[in-house]
């Protein structure tokens, strides 16, 4: 017992039989967490569905105020970030440290781009009194759009759902940026290899789920 750690790799915890078992356990835990995330968002999707079935014409009219070009750009930005995460995992599996770090940094920058676009979308709405809840009071004219004509009954519910859903989604993007900062630092330090890349894999799974939520939010809020 000169050194209890000498007979196994540094990343392997003592309570696991093998690296493989440790990897599978961590990944299964991640999938269970993703299911709880899906159920968190499903509550908001149910709210959307119920109010839409009650007032479909209000949702069609209100969605005109959201810019499909901005939303479309953000969709492609998030899809690109999912692509770079998948590439990062590919390079981690191939022991390519440079490829992994580059793709993790790109993912972080795409996430940042998404939030910057979202910031401009939010501020453009706030300027015209489009707030969630009781403060909802659309007014003013910009780009030929008279905001006052959107002050119709139940429009407040659409925009409350819009701000809550995109806000909680945006918070997940922010958390993702923190996660990618953390694993980029670990990757630069050379802590990942084809033998151990579990944090990259699990952060990737989380990030793909954030992307999937947006894939549904975009058409529901901006297009239809």
């Amino acid at each position, binding site marked *: 017992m000169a050194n209890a750690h000498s007979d196994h790799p540094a990343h392997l915890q003592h309570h696991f039989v093998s690296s*493989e078992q440790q990897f*599978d356990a961590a990944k299964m835990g991640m999938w269970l967490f993703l299911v709880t995330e899906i159920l968190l968002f499903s509550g908001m999707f149910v709210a959307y569905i119920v109010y839409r*079935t009650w007032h479909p014409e209000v949702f069609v009219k209100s969605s005109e105020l959201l810019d*499909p070009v901005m939303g479309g750009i953000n969709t492609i930005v998030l899809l690109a970030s999912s692509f770079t995460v998948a590439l990062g995992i590919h390079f981690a*599996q191939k022991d390519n440290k440079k490829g992994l770090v580059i793709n993790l940094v790109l993912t972080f920058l795409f996430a940042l781009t998404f939030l910057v676009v979202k910031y401009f979308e939010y501020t453009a709405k706030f300027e015209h009194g489009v707030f969630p809840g009781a403060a909802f009071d659309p007014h003013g004219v910009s780009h030929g759009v008279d905001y006052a004509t959107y002050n119709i009954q139940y429009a407040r519910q659409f925009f409350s759902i819009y701000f809550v859903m995109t806000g909680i989604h945006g918070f997940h993007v922010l958390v993702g940026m923190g996660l990618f900062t953390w694993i980029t630092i670990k990757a630069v330090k050379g802590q990942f290899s084809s033998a151990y890349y579990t944090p990259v894999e699990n952060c990737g799974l989380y990030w793909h789920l954030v992307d999937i939520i947006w894939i*549904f939010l975009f*058409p529901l809020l901006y297009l239809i």
Partner: protein
Amino acid sequence: MSHAEHHVSSIKMLSIVFGGLVFLTVTTVLTAQIDLGAFNVPLAMTIAVIKASLVIVIFMALKWDNKVNAVIFGLGLLFVAVFISFVLFDTLYRGDMSSTTKGTVQDEVIRNEALQSREPDPSSLQPVHTP
């Protein structure tokens, strides 16, 4: 320490899927500008489901993953389906039975305010039952 059993997605396949996802995004933006009547919503949702499936199956590599993860994910989707359908059993069919009223709480508030502000009809203020 070989992890040869882990599936490694090729850059070519990931690129093709990414191209497909961008193509579908452009398609859904363009088709949403055309008025297809009742078909706008199902079309946009079909495209969204295809996009999400591509991300889950290829990017998240569920296709090559341990099957237990697919079962966990499938169970999650099942509970979402139960959640949505059982809520709709209520909200879609309100007012179909005589004991319930159609509409939302906000509708009720508006109706009550209208009733409150209405000038009462003098004849209705007379006692109904005279001895």
